[in-house]
């Protein structure tokens, strides 16, 4: 554990040191970035080592001379640590050139401080083994990320985002606390490990409560409301970390509690599976409807959390139906997707950050043609898009492939399970198709075609600190996609602790599978190379002309005439209208000489809508009525005292 705590200490120090030197902006950035990334590297190496030679490493500190804060690194923790440290390190490096506002030096220092705090608390969350240490690190994680979200508090919507996030994370924490409370009430001990002895009904209660709590952090529909607000508000490297790894701590919590309780009734697995499907499909549908680049990516986090939950839910079903292969496939697929998503989602957010910094706008329909001047950003973003659409030969495909296999195993089970498995498979397919549609929209509208506004014309990319992390991440996407063997092995290392109830997992079938994927990918690449060679041969000595795009007879095309992202998604949204009500504002054109008109549209999030209407407003109304009791009349105040006495005397 020493190297683990060394890395955390180093990261904390990196965050604190900024307050000493914040007056020299660049020095401050350099110090923070270098120290924090070094800390992350140490932690990363440590985590990989611990992951590859299994066994649990524990450390415990006395707390208030009565309790103990204990931490442990087993396979599962190590797996999440890898993701956390890897993404955090790259995000830190990215921030060196991204945080370029020297007027806000002090605020940037605070930003680095809370950023380091966030990294450390995430690392502690996935290693904590009793309630106190878990809640402590969990709350610190929420708090620090809140401060990161309201970094740009000047704008009202960012404040709203911060507030939403704050409230959601606190309420979620309360749910988790309630779950722990029930657990503690039964076992009388703070550690999770002793949970397996309590009655099944209590287990189910604990799991469901904690699922709400962790789900609200992970962004499971309908508890995701904060997410599409918070991610756009935060600076991009923060969004990368929050969306890439922080929301995964919710997944970790679900898996960890499930593992330590080892509940074997299928109900919870079914709940998780259904929640996964709903968030998967609705997440990507809402993503299609967005005009804000980062909001779109945020909704894709909801979608991918859904995919992860589908995998884990299948795994749980496999456990409860005694189908070990399905269980392993489901869990390892879900966990591998955790890793994959953290990679390509942070990549995409970094790319978005680059775009926003250069063009100064997040509105998709104002952009276009960026690929010409931003080659690296464009290509890496393209890679990320292919990966998140789950296409081979990129990493997204690998995890979805495994989850699919798990789902097909589930088809052989009995009634409810097989229906759910079928639904899972079909919804995975639909999610894949929708994701493809959504990212062709993003790539096509943002990076291709012609600039749709002046802000997208004069752009460049010169900051190495921002480009290198993106290149690295893109590289990893392809590596995992083509040679997934080691990474699948990693996810398999994480699986056994998740309470499957049997010892080592046979590696052979998985190695076979990875070999097949690699083979197919390489085949595709070979054919592609052949074709490229063929093409060059065919074009040798030919005349290559350039001209404007053919306007199908129209001779004066303008960038305004391009297909916009809104219209691109319109027909698909129409298909999902009941789930995603589309609000349009479009005054009709009339008269021989029509006036200037406009078109506004946005998709309502039904979860947000109903949460306000059904939960919040009645609550507020009731409490407003109750405020009468403080009416300022002293006579009745004295009456209250008399009343209290009289009521109490009835108890005597």
């Amino acid at each position, binding site marked *: 554990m020493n190297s683990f705590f060394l890395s955390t200490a180093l990261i904390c120090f990196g965050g604190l040191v900024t307050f000493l030197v914040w007056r020299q902006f660049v020095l401050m950035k350099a110090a923070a970035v270098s120290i924090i990334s070094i800390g992350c590297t140490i932690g990363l190496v440590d985590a990989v080592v611990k992951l590859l030679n299994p066994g649990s490493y524990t450390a415990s500190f006395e707390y208030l001379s009565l309790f103990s804060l204990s931490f442990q690194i087993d396979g599962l923790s190590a797996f999440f640590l890898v993701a956390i440290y890897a993404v955090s390190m790259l995000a830190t490096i990215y921030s060196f050139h991204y945080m370029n506002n020297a007027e806000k030096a002090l605020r940037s220092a605070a930003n680095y401080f809370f950023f380091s705090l966030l990294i450390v608390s995430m690392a502690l969350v996935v290693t904590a083994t009793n309630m106190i240490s878990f809640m402590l690190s969990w709350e610190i994680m929420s708090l620090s990320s809140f401060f990161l979200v309201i970094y740009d508090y000047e704008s009202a919507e960012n404040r709203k985002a911060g507030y939403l996030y704050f409230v959601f994370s606190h309420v979620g924490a309360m749910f988790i606390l309630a779950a722990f409370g029930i657990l503690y009430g039964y076992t009388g001990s703070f550690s999770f490990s002793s949970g397996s002895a309590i009655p099944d009904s209590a287990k189910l209660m604990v799991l469901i409560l904690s699922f709400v709590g962790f789900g609200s952090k992970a962004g499971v529909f309908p508890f995701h409301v904060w997410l599409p607000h918070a991610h756009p508000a935060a600076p991009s490297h923060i969004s990368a970390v929050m969306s890439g790894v922080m929301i995964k701590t919710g997944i970790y919590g679900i898996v960890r509690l499930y593992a330590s309780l080892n509940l074997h009734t299928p109900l919870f697995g079914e709940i998780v599976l259904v929640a996964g499907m709903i968030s998967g499909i609705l997440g990507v549908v809402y993503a299609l409807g967005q005009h804000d680049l980062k909001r779109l990516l945020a909704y894709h986090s909801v979608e991918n959390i859904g995919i992860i939950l589908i995998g884990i839910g299948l795994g749980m079903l496999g456990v409860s139906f005694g189908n070990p292969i399905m269980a392993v496939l489901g869990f390892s697929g879900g966990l591998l997707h955790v890793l994959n998503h953290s990679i390509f989602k942070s990549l995409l957010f970094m790319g978005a950050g680059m775009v926003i910094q250069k063009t100064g706008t997040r509105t998709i329909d104002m952009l276009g043609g960026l690929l010409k001047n931003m080659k690296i950003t464009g290509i890496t973003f393209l890679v990320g898009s292919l990966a998140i659409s789950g296409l081979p030969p990129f990493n997204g495909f690998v995890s979805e492939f495994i989850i699919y296999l798990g789902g097909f195993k589930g088809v052989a089970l009995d009634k409810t399970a097989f229906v759910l498995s079928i639904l899972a498979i079909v919804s995975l397919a639909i999610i894949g198709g929708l994701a493809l549609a959504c990212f062709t929209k993003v790539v096509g509208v943002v990076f291709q075609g012609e600039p749709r506004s002046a802000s997208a014309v004069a752009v460049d990319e010169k900051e190495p600190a921002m480009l290198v992390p993106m290149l690295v991440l893109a590289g990893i996407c392809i590596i995992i996609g083509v040679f997934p063997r080691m990474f699948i092995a990693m996810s398999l290392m994480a699986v056994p602790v998740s309470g499957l109830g049997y010892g080592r997992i046979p590696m052979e079938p998985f190695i076979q599978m990875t070999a097949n994927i690699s083979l197919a990918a390489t085949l595709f690449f070979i054919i592609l190379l052949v074709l490229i060679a063929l093409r060059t041969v065919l074009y040798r000595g030919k005349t290559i002309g350039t001209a404007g795009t053919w306007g199908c007879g129209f001779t004066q095309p303008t960038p305004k005439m391009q297909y916009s992202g809104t219209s691109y998604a319109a027909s698909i949204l129409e298909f999902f209208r009941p789930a995603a009500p589309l609000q349009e504002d479009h005054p009709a054109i009339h008269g021989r000489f029509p006036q200037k008109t406009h078109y506004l549209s946005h998709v309502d999030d039904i979860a947000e809508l109903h949460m306000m209407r059904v939960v919040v407003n009645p609550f507020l109304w009731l409490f407003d009525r109750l405020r*009468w009791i403080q*009416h*300022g*009349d002293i*006579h009745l105040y*004295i*009456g209250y*005292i008399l009343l209290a006495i009289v009521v109490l005397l009835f108890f005597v």
Partner: protein
Amino acid sequence: MNIPVDLTLSLVLLSVLFSFGSSRLPGLIKVIAFQGVVVSIVPLIIGHDMTAGGILFTLATLMIRGIVIPFCIYFAIKKVAIRREVEPIVGYHASVLAGLGLIVAAMVVSHRFNAPSISASVLLLPTAIALLVAGMFLLMARRNAIAMVLGYIMMENGIYLVGTTFSVRALHIVEFGILLDVLAGVMIMAVILQNIKQTFDDVDTALLRTLKE
């Protein structure tokens, strides 16, 4: 059965009714003063074996309750020339009826408690309760701040009755405490009253309703 005690206690109960009925501050003050005197007599005649010091202490209490406090309040009124009505929220007749009902209720309630053996009179507990609740009634049913103060004093009388007659323990300290309470409390209230008078040029507590949600 203890004739003089019952007599005095019934006087006390009577004073309660009078206080409910009196519409003028001076009258109310007189009633409260009378009540204070009578209440302070009770410990003397109830037949505890008392030390000379005890008797002296009780007499001092009597002086303060019966004379000092009423007079200082009376002069407070004189000085700041406050309107003389007690400005009832509940009307006088209703109040008197309420008083009667209250006494009856006190009688009934007092049977629920197994009154300790040393209590010399059956009227003791009911009277105490009646005084207590009556004081609160005045506090709740009179808008005039001074009337409220007087209600507070009546409440204290009730507690005094309980404290000095039921329990033989810690007699003096209880008396002392109540004394300090009434004295200091009433003094402070008087000060505040004067300020209220200066600020609002009235002591109608209806004016004191600005602080609320």
